[in-house]
C-alpha cells in the first residue's frame, strides 16, 4: 500500500511529546528543542513527500484525486456505530498537512530564539509537539468522531500553551476562558455528532468520492443520508448547524470570539501557530469537510454561515482599528480573516443543471481553502514578526514602538510584505485568494460582495495603521535610550524570510484550483478583471489613507478623530463590550443566580431534611426515654392504670 508511512506523521510528534513530557525536565534546553524540531522536520518532509505523491498521481476516471485511506481501525465500538481512528488523505487534508507542518516547523525553529533561556523551555516544546500531533490528527480524520477527539486535544494544547506563563494571572485567566468558551461550543458539536451519527448510521466521511482503502483498513460504514432525510428533512441541517456552532467556537466567530484576543497572553510563536494559522481554522476546515452535505442537504442553512461570517468580519475589523496592543490587532485581524473564509464557504451556490458539486457555482469553496492557505503563511509571518518586535522592545504596546525600521530591517521588510499580502495587493498571495472570495460573494449577492469589499478595505487600513505605528511614527526615544532595539537572532529571522517568500510567491506560482476545488476536478483560476481592479484600487486608497494619517511623526488627523468620537473609540477599544456581556452571563447569572443557590439548596434544604430526620428520631427518643426510668413505683402506677383502663374498655365493649 502506498502511503503506509503516513502513520509516522502522527506518531513522531506524539513520541516527541511523550519523551519531552516525561524526561524533558532533565534535559538541557538544546537537546529538548532539537528533539522536538527534528521530529517535526521529519514530519514536514513526510508531509511534503505525501503531497508530492498525492498531487502528482494520476487522477481517477472521474477526474478527481482518489481519497486514500491507508489506515482505519475500530478504536471503540459504540453499539451499532463505531468509533474509528484512521488516516484519510484527500485534497484538503493533504493541503492542511502542508500548512500545519510548514508553520509548525517554522515556529519550532523560531522558538529556539524566542524562548531562549526561558524557564520551562522543554515543557514548551512538549506542548508544541502535542499540539502538532493533535492538529494533524484532526485534519486526517476519517470520521467526525475522530475529528471531535482531536478537536478536544487541540483545545487542551491551546489551553496549556496560553497558560504557559502560569505565574501570571492574565495568562491563567485567558487559558481558562479559551478552554471553557470552546468547550461550550464543543457541546453543540457533540450533540450535532450524536444526531448525525444516529440518523445516518455512521460517523464516517465516506461521502467523499472514490475511496481507496489500505490493506487491513476497516471499510467505512456508508453514511446513509437518505435514511436521515426520510426521518425528517430538518435532521441533517440541524446536525450541521450544531456542528457549525462547534466550529464557530474554535474559529472565534461572533459571539464566541471572546477567547481569541485573550489567548494572546501565550508566547507569541504559539499565537502564530495555534491562534492564527492552524487551530483557529479548524472550524473552516470542518465545514469544508462536510461541504458535500451542506451544499446538498442544507443550502438554505448556509446563509447562517454567511451572516455570522459577514458580521464577524466587520466587527473584528472595526475593533482592530482601535486596538493598541499589536498582538490584539493581529488577533482581531485573524478573526476577521477567518470570517472571510467562512463567508466564502457560505456563499457557495447549489450547482447548475442538477450537478451537486460544481466548480463554478462553488468558487467560494476553493477560495476559502486558498485563503486558508495563504492566510496561514502571511499571518504566521506577521505574528512571528510581532514576536521579534516584542522581543526587541519587551512590550506589546504600540506606544513603546515607532521608528523601528532602522533597527530591525529584516523584520521590517517581511512584516511589510505580509501587510501588503493581507491587504490584497497583487501579486502578493493574499490578493489572489481574497479576490476569489470577493468574486464568489458578488456571485452570491452584490450586497454581500460590496460589504466584503469594504471590510477588505478596512483590513488594509488597520494593517497599515499597525505597520506605521510600529516601524514609522514617533520613536519612543526615552525607552530606546535604555535599551536599543536590535534585530532578532538568525533562528528567528530565517523563518520570517521563508514565510515571506512563500507569501510573495504562492499566489501566482501554482494554480491552487488544480489541487483543491469543490468537485475535485481541475479548475483554472481566472481573475474577474473588474472585481480585481476595483478591490485593488480600494485597498490602495485605504493604504494611502492609513499612510496619510499614521505615517508622520505627529498624527493630527488621528488625534482629531479620537477627540471627535471618544465614545466610539472607547467602545471599539473595549471590543464593543462583548467581554463584559459574557462576564455578566457567566459570573453574575450562572455563578450567582444558579450555582450559588443550588449549593445553598443542597446544604440547607436537601441536607437539612436528612439532618432534620436524624434530629427528629433523636428527639423522639429523648421524649420517650423517661418512660424507661427504672423506677419501680412509676412502673407500678403505669401497670395499675393500664390494667384498670383495659378492664374498663373491655367491660364497655362487652
Amino acid at each position, binding site marked *: 500500500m502506498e502511503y503506509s508511512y503516513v502513520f509516522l506523521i502522527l506518531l513522531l510528534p506524539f513520541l516527541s511529546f511523550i519523551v519531552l513530557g516525561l524526561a524533558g525536565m532533565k534535559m538541557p534546553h538544546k537537546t529538548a528543542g532539537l528533539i522536538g524540531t527534528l521530529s517535526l522536520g521529519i514530519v514536514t518532509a513526510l508531509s511534503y513527500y505525501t503531497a508530492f505523491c498525492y498531487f502528482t498521481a494520476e487522477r481517477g476516471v472521474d477526474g478527481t484525486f482518489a481519497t486514500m485511506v491507508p489506515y482505519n481501525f475500530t478504536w471503540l465500538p459504540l453499539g451499532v456505530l463505531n468509533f474509528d481512528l484512521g488516516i484519510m488523505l484527500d485534497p484538503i487534508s493533504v493541503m492542511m498537512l502542508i500548512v500545519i507542518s510548514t508553520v509548525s516547523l517554522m515556529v519550532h525553529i523560531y522558538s529556539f530564539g524566542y524562548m531562549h533561556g526561558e524557564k520551562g523551555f522543554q515543557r514548551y516544546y512538549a506542548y508544541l509537539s502535542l499540539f502538532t500531533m493533535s492538529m494533524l490528527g484532526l485534519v486526517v480524520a476519517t470520521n467526525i468522531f475522530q475529528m471531535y477527539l482531536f478537536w478536544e486535544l487541540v483545545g487542551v494544547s491551546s489551553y496549556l500553551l496560553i497558560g504557559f506563563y502560569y505565574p501570571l494571572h492574565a495568562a491563567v485567566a485567558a*487559558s481558562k476562558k479559551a478552554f471553557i468558551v470552546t468547550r461550550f461550543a464543543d*457541546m453543540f458539536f457533540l*450533540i450535532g455528532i450524536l444526531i448525525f*451519527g*444516529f440518523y445516518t448510521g455512521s460517523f464516517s466521511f465516506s461521502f467523499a468520492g472514490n475511496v481507496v482503502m489500505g490493506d487491513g483498513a476497516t471499510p467505512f460504514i456508508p453514511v446513509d443520508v437518505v435514511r436521515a432525510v426520510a426521518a425528517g428533512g430538518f435532521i441533517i441541517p440541524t446536525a450541521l448547524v450544531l456542528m457549525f456552532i462547534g466550529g464557530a467556537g474554535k474559529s472565534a466567530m461572533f459571539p464566541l470570539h471572546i477567547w481569541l484576543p485573550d489567548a494572546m497572553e501565550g508566547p507569541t510563536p504559539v499565537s502564530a501557530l495555534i491562534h492564527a494559522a492552524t487551530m483557529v481554522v479548524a472550524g473552516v476546515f470542518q465545514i469544508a469537510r462536510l461541504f458535500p452535505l451542506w451544499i446538498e442537504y442544507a443550502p438554505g442553512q448556509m446563509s447562517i454561515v454567511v451572516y455570522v461570517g459577514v458580521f464577524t468580519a466587520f466587527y473584528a475589523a472595526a475593533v482592530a482599528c482601535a486596538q493598541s496592543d499589536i498582538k490584539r490587532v493581529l488577533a482581531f485581524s485573524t478573526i476577521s480573516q477567518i470570517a472571510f473564509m467562512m463567508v466564502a464557504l457560505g456563499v457557495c451556490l447549489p450547482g447548475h443543471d442538477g450537478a451537486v458539486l460544481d466548480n463554478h457555482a462553488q468558487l467560494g469553496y476553493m477560495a476559502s481553502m486558498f485563503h486558508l492557505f495563504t492566510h496561514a503563511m502571511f499571518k504566521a509571518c506577521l505574528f512571528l514578526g510581532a514576536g521579534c518586535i516584542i522581543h526587541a522592545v519587551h512590550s506589546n504596546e504600540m506606544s513603546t514602538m515607532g521608528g523601528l525600521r532602522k533597527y530591525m530591517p529584516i523584520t521590517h521588510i517581511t512584516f511589510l510584505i505580509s501587510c501588503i499580502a493581507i491587504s490584497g495587493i497583487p501579486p502578493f498571495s493574499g490578493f489572489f485568494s481574497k479576490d476569489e472570495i470577493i468574486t464568489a460573494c458578488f456571485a452570491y449577492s452584490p450586497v454581500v460582495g460590496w460589504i466584503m469589499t469594504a471590510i477588505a478595505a478596512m483590513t488594509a487600513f488597520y494593517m497599515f495603521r499597525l505597520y506605521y505605528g510600529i516601524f514609522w511614527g514617533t520613536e519612543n526615544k526615552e525607552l530606546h535610550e535604555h535599551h536599543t532595539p536590535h534585530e532578532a537572532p538568525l533562528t528567528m529571522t530565517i523563518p520570517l524570510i521563508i514565510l515571506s517568500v512563500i507569501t510573495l510567491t504562492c499566489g501566482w506560482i501554482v494554480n491552487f484550483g488544480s489541487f483543491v476545488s469543490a468537485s475535485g476536478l481541475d479548475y483554472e483560476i481566472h481573475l474577474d478583471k473588474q472585481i480585481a481592479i476595483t478591490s485593488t484600487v480600494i485597498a490602495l486608497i485605504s493604504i494611502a489613507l492609513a499612510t496619510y494619517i499614521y505615517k508622520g511623526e505627529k498624527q493630527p488627523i488621528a488625534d482629531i478623530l479620537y477627540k471627535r468620537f471618544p465614545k466610539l473609540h472607547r467602545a471599539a477599544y473595549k471590543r464593543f463590550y462583548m467581554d463584559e456581556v459574557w462576564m455578566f452571563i457567566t459570573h453574575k447569572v450562572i455563578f450567582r443566580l444558579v*450555582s450559588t443557590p*443550588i*449549593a445553598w439548596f443542597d446544604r440547607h434544604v436537601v*441536607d437539612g431534611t*436528612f439532618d432534620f430526620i436524624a434530629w427528629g428520631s433523636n428527639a423522639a427518643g429523648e421524649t420517650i426515654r423517661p418512660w424507661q426510668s427504672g423506677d419501680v413505683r412509676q412502673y407500678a402506677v403505669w401497670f395499675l392504670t393500664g390494667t384498670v383502663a383495659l378492664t374498663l374498655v373491655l367491660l364497655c365493649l362487652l
Partner: protein
Amino acid sequence: MNILSLFVLIPVVMLLGLWIARNLNQVRGVMVIGSSFLLALSVYLTVAFIQARQNGDTSAMLFTYSTPWFKPLNIAYSTGVDGISVVMLLLSSIIVFTGTFASWQLKPMTKEYFLWFTLLSTGVYGFFICTDLFTMFMFYEVALIPMYLLIGVWGSGQKEYAAMKLTLMLMGGSALLIIGILGIYYFSGATTMNITEIAAMHNIPVDIQKVFFPFIFIGFGVLGALFPFHTWSPDGHASAPTAVSMLHAGVLMKLGGYGCFRIAMYLLPEAAHELSWIFLILTTISVVYGALSACVQTDLKYINAYSSVSHCGLVLFALLMMTKTACTGAILQMLSHGLMTALFFALIGMIYGRTHTRDIRKLGGLMKIMPFLSVGYVIAGLANLGLPGFSGFIAEMTIFVGSFENNDVFHRTCTIIACTSIVVTAVYILRVVGKILFEKVADPHYEQLTDATWDERFSVCCLIFCVAGLGMAPLWVSNVINGGVSSVLSVINF
C-alpha cells in the same frame, strides 16, 4: 478451590497477618504483599476470563462455585463473575493497592487503620464475586461498617458528625435493600437466592415488582449518590482520610451502581422499564446539579465530592437508558470514575498533608513548589473533564452515544441536558486548577514545602498509568464489559 474465593481469603489472611504484626514495617509488609497478591490475582482473573470467553465459553457466569451455608432460607455462598464483575474486581485491586501506598505515612494507630481498611476491602471483594442475594447483602454490610470507624477515628474536621451521617444514611439504604431482597425472594417463589436463577425464572408479577423496585434502586442509589440521597457524600468525603476517600469514591460508590444494575434492574425488569422515567429524571438532576454545585465550593474535597455526585449520577443515568452501549458506558464510567477520583483524592490528601488546608482561597502557586503533585493534579483534572486520551472521554462518549440510541424525545432531552455537564465540569475543574496551582504562591510558608515522596509518587503514577491506559486502548475493556452487559440486558429487555 475456586479462584474467586481467594479474593475473600487473601484479605482474611491479611487480617490475621496484621493482627500478628509487631511493628510498622511488618504492617506495611503485610499490606504490600497482600494487596500485590490481590492485584496480581485480579489481573490473572481478567486474562483467564478473556481467554475463557475466546475459547467460546458463553455461560453468563464463569468460575462458578456454590455451597449452601443456611439451608432453611436457601442461602448459599455462590460465586461467579461476568465481564462487569471482572473489571470491578480489577478496579478494586488497583485502588486497594494504590491506597496502601497513599496511606504509607498515616499515623497514629497504623495497624488498626489497616485492619479496618482490609476488612472494608474484604466486603467489597465479596460483594463483587458473589451471585447470591443474601451473601451479597452480607458483604455489602461488611463493607459499610468499617467506614464508620475509619472516618470517625482517622478523619479530619467534623469527623464524628460525618461518620455518623454517612453510616446512618447508608444503613437506611440497607434497610430498604433487605426489604427488597426479601420481597424478591418470597414473591418469586424461588428455592434459591442465586440471582441468575431468579432472573431466569422471571415470574414476579409486575405489580409486586413495582413495589419492590424503588426499595432496591433507592437502597443502592444512596450509595451511588442518587439525588436527593447524596448528601452524605460531601461531608463523608471531606472528613475521610485519604485512602478511605479513595476507596470510598473509587470502589464503594460503584457498589451502588453495580447493585442497581445487577439486582434491581436485572431481577425486576418490567418495573425497571415502567419506573425508569422517575429515576431518569432524578439522575439527570444529579448530573447537572452536582456539577453546578461543585462550581462554587471552596473546599477541594467538597468539589470532588460534588463532582462524584455528577459522575456517579451519569452511571445510574446510563444504566437506566437500558441500551447495550449506554450500559457498557455506565460500567466504563464506573471504572473510569473510580480511577480518576481515587487519583484526585490521593492528590488532595497529599496536598492537604503539606499545606494543612483544603480551602482553595488559601492555596495558590503550588506548581512552583510541588511540581509533581501539581502536574498529577492537572492530569487528574483533565481526565475528569473528559479529555481524549484519558478514561473519562471514552466512558462519557459511550454513554452519550448509547443514550441517544433511545428513539424518543424524553430520553434524548435527558441526554442533551446531561451533555451540558461536560461544560460545567470544565468550569469547576479549571477554576480549581487555576486557583491552587498557578499564579502567585499564596502563602510564603508554602515555599518550604516539599514535593511528593517515593510512596506517593508510586501511587499517583500507577493511577495515572491506569487512567491513560484505559483512555488510549479502550477496546479490550469495552469488549469484556460488553459481554457481561448484553447477557444482563437480554433479561432486562426480555
